[in-house]
Structure formats: C-alpha cells, structure tokens
C-alpha cells in the first residue's frame, strides 16, 4: 500500500516536472533579441581539404583558351634543352605554381623508340629534369615538382618515322589529380 503511494507521488512529480519545463525555456528570449540590436549574420568559411587533387571546375588549367591547358614540350633529336618557343609555356606554369603553393606537378619525360630502352629512360629523365629546373628558376618550389621518365614506353605516335619520333620526344607537365 505504501509502495503504491510512493510510486504514485513519484509519477505525479515527474508529470508535473514535465509540464513545467517548456515554460521555463522561454520563447521570450527570441523577443528579447528582436528587441535589441540586430545581430550580424555570420557564416564561417569551410577550409576545403581535397585529397582527389583534381583542379576544380573552371580552373585555368582546364580552360582551353588558357595557355596553362597546354602541357607538352617537344625536343630535337638527342636534345634536352627547352627550346625558346616553349618559354612562354614554362613561364605561365611557373607563375601558376608560385601562386598556388599547394599545387603539385609531375613531369614525365619521353624519348623516341630508337636505341636502348634503359638509355632512353635516361634521355627522358634529362628532358623532365630540364623542365623542372626551368620552372624552379622561375620561382616554383622544389617540393612542388617531381620529374620522372617514361623512356620510350609510352609513345603517343607509333609509326617508325621521324614525324612520329618528334612527337614522342616530349615532356608532359601533369598536375596533381591528372595522373
């Protein structure tokens, strides 16, 4: 009997408590605010961490009218110096790398098919190293650029003639997310 009374009282107290709570949390506060100075609307920016590395849509790297969309440098037979005609391209990419210190670049050097595959890896490396050096002289940071060689292994043109070989003696600049 006594237990029943306690239980009932307890339940009653709980019900009472429940009933009173909403009244304590005031809709009045809203009215307070409206009455005071208007609060400035603040939105905190979200710092985007992009592990895909893909340049966002609208990136100058993807704009066909922007020189930055051009990525290839061609070489003469057995040569690895960047020819003058490619200076504007190198300068544009160096500027992009300077202005986007988070940007990473992989330079793949290529060689034509003649001769030893491994020696051609060496020739391709010389070409990619020369592009890397040129970019760094123009302010790109060492840790932004890796220069590697694909030797003669990834030809874009497969005829066995000089026209084709000229297309394969090439350095390609790829940005993070593009390889």
């Amino acid at each position, binding site marked *: 009997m006594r237990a029943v009374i306690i239980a009932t009282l307890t339940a009653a107290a709980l019900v009472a408590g429940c009933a009173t709570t909403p009244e304590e949390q005031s809709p009045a506060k809203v009215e307070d605010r409206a009455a005071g100075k208007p609060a400035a609307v603040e939105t905190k920016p979200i710092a985007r961490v992009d592990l895909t590395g893909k340049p966002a849509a609208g990136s100058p790297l993807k704009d066909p009218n922007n020189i930055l969309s051009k990525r290839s440098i061609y070489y003469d037979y057995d040569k690895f110096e960047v020819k003058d005609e490619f200076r504007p391209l190198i300068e544009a990419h160096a500027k992009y790398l300077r202005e986007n210190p988070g940007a990473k670049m992989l330079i793949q050097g290529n060689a034509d098919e003649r001769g*030893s595959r491994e*020696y051609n*890896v*060496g020739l391709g490396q010389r070409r990619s190293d020369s592009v890397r050096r040129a970019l760094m002289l123009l302010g790109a940071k060492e840790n932004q650029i890796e220069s*590697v*060689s694909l030797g003669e292994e990834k030809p874009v043109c497969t005829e066995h003639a000089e026209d084709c070989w000229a297309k394969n003696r090439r350095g390609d600049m790829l940005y993070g997310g593009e390889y």
Partner: protein
Amino acid sequence: MQALLPRFCAFLGIVLLLAAPLARAQLSIEITGAGAPRMPIAIAAFPGEAALGPGITSIVRADLERSGLFRGLEIPPLAPAPTEVSNVNYAEWRSRLADALVLGSVAVRPDGRYEVRFRLYDVVKQASLGGVAYTLSKEQVRATAHRIADFVYEKLTGEKGVFSTRIAYVVKRGNRFELQIADADGAGEEAALVSFEPIISPAWSPDGRKLAYVSFENKKPVVYVHSLLDGKRNVVANFRGSNSAPAWSPDGSKLAVTLSREGGSQIFLINADGSGLRRLTSSAAIDTEPRFSSDGQWIYFTSDRGGSPQIYRMPAAGGEPQRVTFEGSYNVTPRLSPDGKTLAYITLNEGKFQVALLDLSNRQVQIITDSDRDESPSFAPNGRMILLATVLGGRGVLSAVSSDGRVKQRLTVTAGDVREPAWGPFIE
C-alpha cells in the same frame, strides 16, 4: 662387336619437378641459319611413349637440333623396337650414319605415374655413355624431355645444356603488358605479371626464383622484386624521380639500379630488400644499364660522359670508371658472358642496331646479327647462345644467335609484340 652388353641403368635419378605449366606453345622457333657440321644423332622412339601425349623423343630431338650442334636422323619404325636394355647393333646404326644413339622406354608405374628410362651410346666408339631413369606425371613430359636433352648434350659436348632453363620476356598485346616465363624453347608460357602499364628490364635472381624488373604502374618507373613461386612483389626502389635498370649481384644479395633521386641518372647499389642505398657513380652524364661481372668484381654500364653512349666499367664497390668500347658512336646494354671473357652489347652500325661481341682479352669486336633493331642481348647460362629482341615486319620478335654468330633462330609469338628477353640461370 657385341661385347659391350648394355648394363641396366648406371644410375637412377628420381627427379622432383616443379608442377610443369600447361603446354600452351605460344612461341614457335625457326632455325634460320645453320652452323658448323652437326653431329648426326639417332633418337629411336621410346616404346610406350604414346601414352604420355606429346612425343617425348621428338622434344629431345627438337632441343638438340635447336642448339645447332646436332642433326636428328629420320629412323623408320623398327621391329622389334629397341629399348635401353636391348643389345645395340652398332654396325646397323653406323650404316644409318649415326654418331650417337639414344634408346629408351616408357612404362606406367603402379601409382599411375610414368617411368622413362634411356641410355646414350657413342656409336663410333661403340660405348655406352650412361643413362638415367625419371619418374614423372603426364604434365612433366616437356620438363623430362629437356632433362634428357641436357644429359645428351653434356655427354656429347662436355658443356652443360640449357634446355631445362627458362626465359622471361615481355609481350605487349593491345594495351596489355605481360611478363611471361617460358621454357628455353618458348613452350609452356605462363604470365607472372599482367599490367596496363609498361614493364621493362626483367632480370633473373641468381637462384632463378625471382625476377627484378621495372614497372610503370605508378606512372613512373619503379623497381620491383617478384617472387615467381608465390607472386609476391616487393618494391626495392621507389625514390623520388625514376628508378630503373636493376641488375643482381652474383650472390643475389644486392641490386645495382639507376636512380634520378639526386638529379640525372646515376647508378646506386641497394640491398635486395630495399635497404642500404649507396651511390656508385657521380657524373653529370647518364650512367645506366649496370651489370655485374660473374666474379662480382666489376660493374659494366652505359654512360654518355664522353659525349656519346659507350660502355664503361668500374670496381663493384665504386671507383674510377674505365672506358671499354671505343669503336662507333652508340654502344649500349653491356652483357657479360658467364665465363666473363666476352662482352655482348648493342652497337649502332651503319644505321642498324646490332649485337656486337667484344673479346675482352684481345679487344676484337664482331657483329653477330644481321637484323637492324636489336635490343637486350642475354646470354644462355652456358654462354653458347644469345637471346635478343629485334623487330621483324614491324613487330617485336625474339631471336637467338650462337655466340660464334653461325646459328640463328627466331622465336615468334602468335599475336603481340615481344621484347625484353632475359635468359634464366641453371636450375639445380
């Protein structure tokens, strides 16, 4: 005359062979140049061999003929068919012009396996040169035939045969690159690695269990060591820049590799597990294609430090390089013969890339191929033949040439470009 009664099997060899691959003969071999006078040898069909499927004696004969040193004689069916326990009628075999004779038999064992016994005879001296017995399963016919051919070859030439060795090469089919392992005769091809990115420079570990190679699967060259039995792959060199041109030290503990991590292409030494990197060359040139001499004392390599690519050598611990090739403007890809006396390499000769041999004692150079886009010469472990890649009709093919240049063979694959051959070591 019949005094030499053939005594039964001088010794009995029970061979535990690795599970032989299914024989998918993808490479076929054609002998395109004849050599010196070849020894006529009669290999009589082994009674009972039909039960084994592919003719074991025809594989033995093909092996021996491929060496360029033997000519298999046509033998009409004999009745009664002679076996290794028959009395040999030397006069009769002499009249068939045989200098050597192989007789044998095949029997089914109670456990369902087979037993092949054979004996080799010197018909001129009228003497037995010994014989062997092998037990095998049906899948091991090719491997057994290669062992018989090795036995015959060694007894008759005094040199070890290479018919039981294996070769590695890369086939490009469409946009796929396959690192293939096959018997030395091109049969039993099995892919160890298939990739959508190029694979180059396979190099056998001295024990024949592993291959080092360069794979471009990470959009740059990286050196791997690949265990053939279980397919486990370990990255040995994946430094910033390019990693390429692996070469095993003769004891299998180290690899010489070409790295661009410090700028340019330079040769480094690294432990086979990827630890203990040490730089060996320091030049502003391309230094690449390292290769140890078989005594481990020297590393031969390609360098353009003199203005054109030439072959140099340096002490294996590093040190002052010495120039080795002088004739011509393009000499690359040094490969030492197993006895260390000869250097094979690729030379640009009147617009043609061809295989040259340099006798290291008298400095004589001999060009031993007549093709024009040769690459990657590779000595057989007995030094008699050199396997190479060349281009025929616009397609990559493998070719083999005897080290005297007299015997030439072509290995063609049914579809695809074949390149980057590497002849494996003797397997004990």
